[in-house]
């Protein structure tokens, strides 16, 4: 009997292994932001922040915050040496123009066709899409980062999204705290299972068509 225990850390650890040196990466607010903490030291990625910078650095020490330097969540950040600032048109030109290699976004629902819903629950919570629609439309690789199960026990991975979409067929990879999935248009393909979960457990606990890749392998954080 495997008991599901939520682990945002494992999601962030696995996504951080997707990048290669030189990749320009945009990390969404919340869980995706954690990914920056787990990028291996031998890999150098260039973080883009849609409010207008590349070369995003760590949070400043307390007392050294600059009111003119924030991330897209409005939190104080720093700029690495060699970074650059620009306006919102340049920022989204970089995003929409295909100059961002990978974007990592949070999820309300993601489905096996690659549709993503993450900006609105009608009548309940309507924060707005911010830059998410542009990021999914424009980035070369889109990674959806999410805990596998809701508190209700249903999975965030669906056959078909029911919430308003952020983008149609934009998601390439889904990483949850139980496994790594590729979106194949008509199903999710499980490429890795995160122990102690097993492929059987994952198929059983996903409300979508999951097929286990022939070369599916275990992964340990």
């Amino acid at each position: 009997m495997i008991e599901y225990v939520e682990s945002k850390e494992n999601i962030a650890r696995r996504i951080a292994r997707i990048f290669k040196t030189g990749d320009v990466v945009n990390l969404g607010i919340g869980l995706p932001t954690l990914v920056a903490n787990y990028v291996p030291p031998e890999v150098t990625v260039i973080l883009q922040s849609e409010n207008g910078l590349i070369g995003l650095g760590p949070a400043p020490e307390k007392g050294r915050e600059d009111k003119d330097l924030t991330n897209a969540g409005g939190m104080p950040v720093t700029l690495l040496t060699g970074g650059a600032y620009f306006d919102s048109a340049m920022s989204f030109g970089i995003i929409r123009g295909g100059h961002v290699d990978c974007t990592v976004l949070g999820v309300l629902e993601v489905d096996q066709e690659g549709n993503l819903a993450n900006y609105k629950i009608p009548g309940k919570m309507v924060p707005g899409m911010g830059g998410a629609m542009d990021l999914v439309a424009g980035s070369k690789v889109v990674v959806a980062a999410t805990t596998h199960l809701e508190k209700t026990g249903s999975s965030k991975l669906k056959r078909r999204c029911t919430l308003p979409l952020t983008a149609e067929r934009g998601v390439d990879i889904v990483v949850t705290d139980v496994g790594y999935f590729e979106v194949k248009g008509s199903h999710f393909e499980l490429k890795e299972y995160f122990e102690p979960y097993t492929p059987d457990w994952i198929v059983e606990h996903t409300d979508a068509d999951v097929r286990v890749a022939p070369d599916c392998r275990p992964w340990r954080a």
Partner: protein
Amino acid sequence: MIEKPVISAAEAAKMVGEGAVVHVGGFLACGSPLGILAALADLGTRNLTLVCNDTAVLDERNGRITGVAPLVKNRQFRKMIVSHIGTNPESQRQMNAGETEVVLVPQGTLAERVRAAGCGLGGVLTATGLGTEVQEGKQVVQVRGRTFLVEEALPGDVALIKAKKADKAGNLVYSKTARNFNPLMAMACALVIAEVEEIVEIGQIDPDQVHTPSILVDYLVKA
């Protein structure tokens, strides 16, 4: 060069007429003209249409109210055209109650619609929003085998922007991520008022470092 009038925040606020379409620079209030916004909140001008990245932060429990949030709270906007309202529950309440019209626009599309207005373009073609609620009511076109939405230019009556530094002619230099929508809005509105932290003599800003050329700026306000 011609010097631009330096006016007070209160005088600037009075230039925003009832019912005006107001572009406000800033991203979660980083790079917003806070002095002019405070004066406009005091003045209470109503029926405005807001064009801004977001509706800033309204967190009454922790006493945080930033950027355009006081104007939202005062119900000074008839309509808000923004990409994000998630940090201002009052915006969401007004939208859900039907008190204020809220048009949510993808952030990059918002930037391009403002830029198009300032550059004499009718609009832009973008794939952002295809297959989503953003597509509703919009023209869809094919160009070179790709599908795009037609997004119209979004001009304004008044731009309230913020820069780090101006010279007396109105050449502007922004600071870090406080730049965001400010240079785009400086081109998109009939009247442009820039709140700046520092005003220097003409010639003291390296022409290569100017972000917004002086001809786009009508008035300066010292922050």
